[in-house]
């Protein structure tokens, strides 16, 4: 019986990671460590760059959610120019962002998550993937999935020029508007996408909710945590992915705090461990308490489920219906982390309905999509909801609009501690003492993080490679000098 089980690399997510599971002599799981081995250092190498270049550089933090970084960055850059933005630009950006949300959620649900439910969590790894799913559900459905994703991407590309590695936002607005013929091209696709969201919900009902074993895993399984929830909401406490206030609600439904973009440092702080490059955010006012659940925990999730947990309602009617159906099964707020897969589908309905609203907006094809900024104010904040959690960009620049600092707290980073905890919980539940776990069991351990749709390339922190050392020199009892290395 092994003393250590390593899952390396973790798969069907974005980014690098490995899970180390330690066992005692009887074969029971004593500890698990979810380690993130990657780091690139964006917050350092964007310093010195013209601030308007950052929205095109930070997209390379993540190629799955570049639009999220682009939007958060654009908002922070706008702040550096006194927040003078053409009003139409905000509408266009929101429209573009809804299209992005749809194809990103489709990709996660069908390519990354669905294999566990369609093929089965312990299926042969060779077929437990999007290709196996397409074979099993048939080319008609497979083609519909690929087609829907393609259409949402094309809508994004038509509005803003690219469907990946976004380029479109500038200080004061966006680089191009939406022309009438472009609008006429995308309007029918929006309707098709709405239909696809309904199709996806029905598929979820047929494949997951109709399967007692799956419902049992979702409702009674170990994929649950007593930690809190974070998400962006509008003035009605409905989700808004592009702009709003950050709301944190505990798992019993009580609001813990609500803050504006520029206040984030008063509410969120980060903890570091020596065994992962990724930091561990927590609620600053409660202080770091370690990996503990409970009503006093300082940990929170920022995920689609968390967003719907902090929301009192959805922003659009059909999404509201889908939301109510979901809540009736998994509760509101819900601690059932596999409910994230359902929450994604509910969000897609709001994305589609919002797209339809924008298509009907008579102003949407106006050419007043950018203004020339008149002042450089030197600091800006941008918080958006990435598909996988609340994303914060905070920049400063000098009087020539050259970046002097950047601080980022990224979507998946918020979930680092919860993912640690639920991975351990699931490993301890599923790995039986004395029985070597097969690949199916290990895959079920991976299903714990997969519900969060993590994006570890979004992790951007560094390693110096040396032991921390602090030397304080006192002269005559008074502090004289201090030397530090790596701390």
């Amino acid at each position, binding site marked *: 019986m092994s003393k250590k089980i390593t*899952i390396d*690399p973790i*798969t*069907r*997510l*974005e980014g690098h990671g490995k899970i*180390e599971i330690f066992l005692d002599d009887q074969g029971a799981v004593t*500890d698990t*460590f979810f380690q993130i081995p*990657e780091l*690139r*250092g964006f917050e350092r*190498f*964007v*310093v*010195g*760059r*013209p601030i*308007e*270049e950052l929205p095109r*550089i930070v997209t*390379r933090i993540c*190629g*799955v959610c570049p639009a999220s970084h682009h939007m958060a960055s654009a908002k922070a850059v706008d702040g550096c120019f006194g927040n003078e933005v053409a009003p139409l630009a905000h509408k266009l950006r929101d429209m573009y962002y809804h299209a992005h949300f749809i194809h990103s959620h489709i990709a996660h649900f069908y390519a*990354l998550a669905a294999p566990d439910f369609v093929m089965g969590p312990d299926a042969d790894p060779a077929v437990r*993937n*999007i*290709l196996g799913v*397409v074979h099993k559900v048939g080319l008609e459905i497979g*083609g519909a999935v*690929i*087609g829907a*994703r393609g259409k949402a*991407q094309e809508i994004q590309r038509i509005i803003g*020029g*690219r469907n990946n*590695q976004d*380029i479109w936002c*500038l200080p004061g607005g966006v680089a191009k508007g939406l022309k009438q013929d472009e609008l006429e091209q995308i309007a029918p696709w929006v309707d098709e996408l709405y239909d696809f969201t309904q199709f996806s919900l029905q598929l979820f009902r047929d494949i997951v909710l109709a399967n007692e074993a799956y419902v049992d895993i979702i409702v009674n399984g170990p994929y649950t945590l007593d930690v809190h929830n974070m998400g962006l909401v509008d003035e009605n406490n409905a989700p808004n992915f592009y702009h709003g206030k950050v709301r944190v609600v505990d798992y019993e439904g009580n609001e813990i705090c609500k803050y504006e973009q520029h206040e984030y*440092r008063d509410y969120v702080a*980060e*903890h*570091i*461990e*020596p*065994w*992962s*490059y990724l*930091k561990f955010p927590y609620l600053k006012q409660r202080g770091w308490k370690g990996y503990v659940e409970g009503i006093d925990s300082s940990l929170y999730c920022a995920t689609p489920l968390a967003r719907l947990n902090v929301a009192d309602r959805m922003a659009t009617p059909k999404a509201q219906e889908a939301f109510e159906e979901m809540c009736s099964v998994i509760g509101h707020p819900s601690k059932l982390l596999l409910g994230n897969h359902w929450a994604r589908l509910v969000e897609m309905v709001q994305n589609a309905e919002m797209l339809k609203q924008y298509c009907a907006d008579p102003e949407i094809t106006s050419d007043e999509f950018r203004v020339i*900024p008149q002042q450089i104010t030197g600091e800006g904040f941008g918080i958006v909801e990435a598909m996988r959690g609340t994303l914060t960009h905070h920049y400063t620049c000098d009087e*020539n*609009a*050259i970046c002097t600092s950047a601080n980022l707290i990224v979507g998946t980073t918020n979930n680092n501690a919860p993912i640690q905890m639920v991975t351990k919980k699931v490993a301890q539940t599923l790995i039986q003492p004395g029985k070597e776990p097969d690949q199916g069991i290990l895959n079920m351990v991976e299903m714990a993080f997969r519900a969060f749709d993590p*994006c570890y390339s979004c992790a951007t922190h*560094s*390693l*110096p*490679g040396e032991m921390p050392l602090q030397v304080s020199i006192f002269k005559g009892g008074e502090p004289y000098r201090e030397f530090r290395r*790596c*701390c």
Partner: protein
Amino acid sequence: MPEKLQIAIYWGAACGGCDVSVLDTNEFILDVDALCDVRLWPIAVDGKYKDVEAMADGELDVAIMNGAVRNSENEHIAKLLRQKSKIFVAYGSCAYMGGIPSLANLTSRDAIFETLFMANPSIEPGNRTVPLPVSKVGGHQLELPRFYERVYALNQIVDVDYYVPGCPPVPSQCKAAILALVQALTGQAPAPPKGAVVGAFERALCDDCPRTRTQEKKIKRFYRPWEIMQDPDVCLMEQGIFCAGIATRSGCGVRCPKSGIPCRGCYGPAPGVVDQGAKLISAVSSIIDSKDPDEIDRILETLPDFTSFANRYSVATSLLQRSHGQ
């Protein structure tokens, strides 16, 4: 001998965008599935490192790796995949040239650490420690890859057979490149010459850009993209807006200038160009309308931080590769 081609798709210091670009070939992914067994592709498929370690040398027909080499794990897996594959492809700007992560080569590992840990405003006292290659927690030993002093492109670490440029490569080019490899491996067409850039054209971006250009490109100042309302039909450089297209390989469909945004060079140097940044020095200088050194300096002040425009995606493979200062 298996009927299907055995392939691996892997990421180094990457963002995932290149893996997504393969998925963006839409229905073509089903053709790939019909032709190939994908043995490793962490974004989509459950193959693990131990599965690759168990392969025979050359068992993979093609290994397609994106992302740069930033740490010891990236290097280790790049070398492992090179050993286990017949053809090794560097896919995307990071693999080809170091990419955006190689902007870190203009700073240093210590500076990254200083910014992200020592000066980071989000860390409270008592929570400040440092990730380490080896750490001990509760009696267990845990390991992390070593973060190198600088970023490397793949050909600085392993022998690369082909390059597919772009950040990310456009899906039509991804498809063209994969098809070219499949045809070469199945004997239907000769293989491209080793070291070739595939999935792109043998000309500069300007040759395919629809904007109008005159012979007389002469400017008295540069404009940052937010400073003016640009004319969408005229060459950006002629309007004083820096665009790297002039020294950049075409193949992307001119996706950025067509949308009102200047090129930043992600497809790498145009054919025949050794160092994209060095060429851009010439290109930018040649449009400055002045013979007076002071006026030239004033004009160049309107284009701050030229260095990050010169080698935006290619610091690692620029001639100097990284900053050599203190």
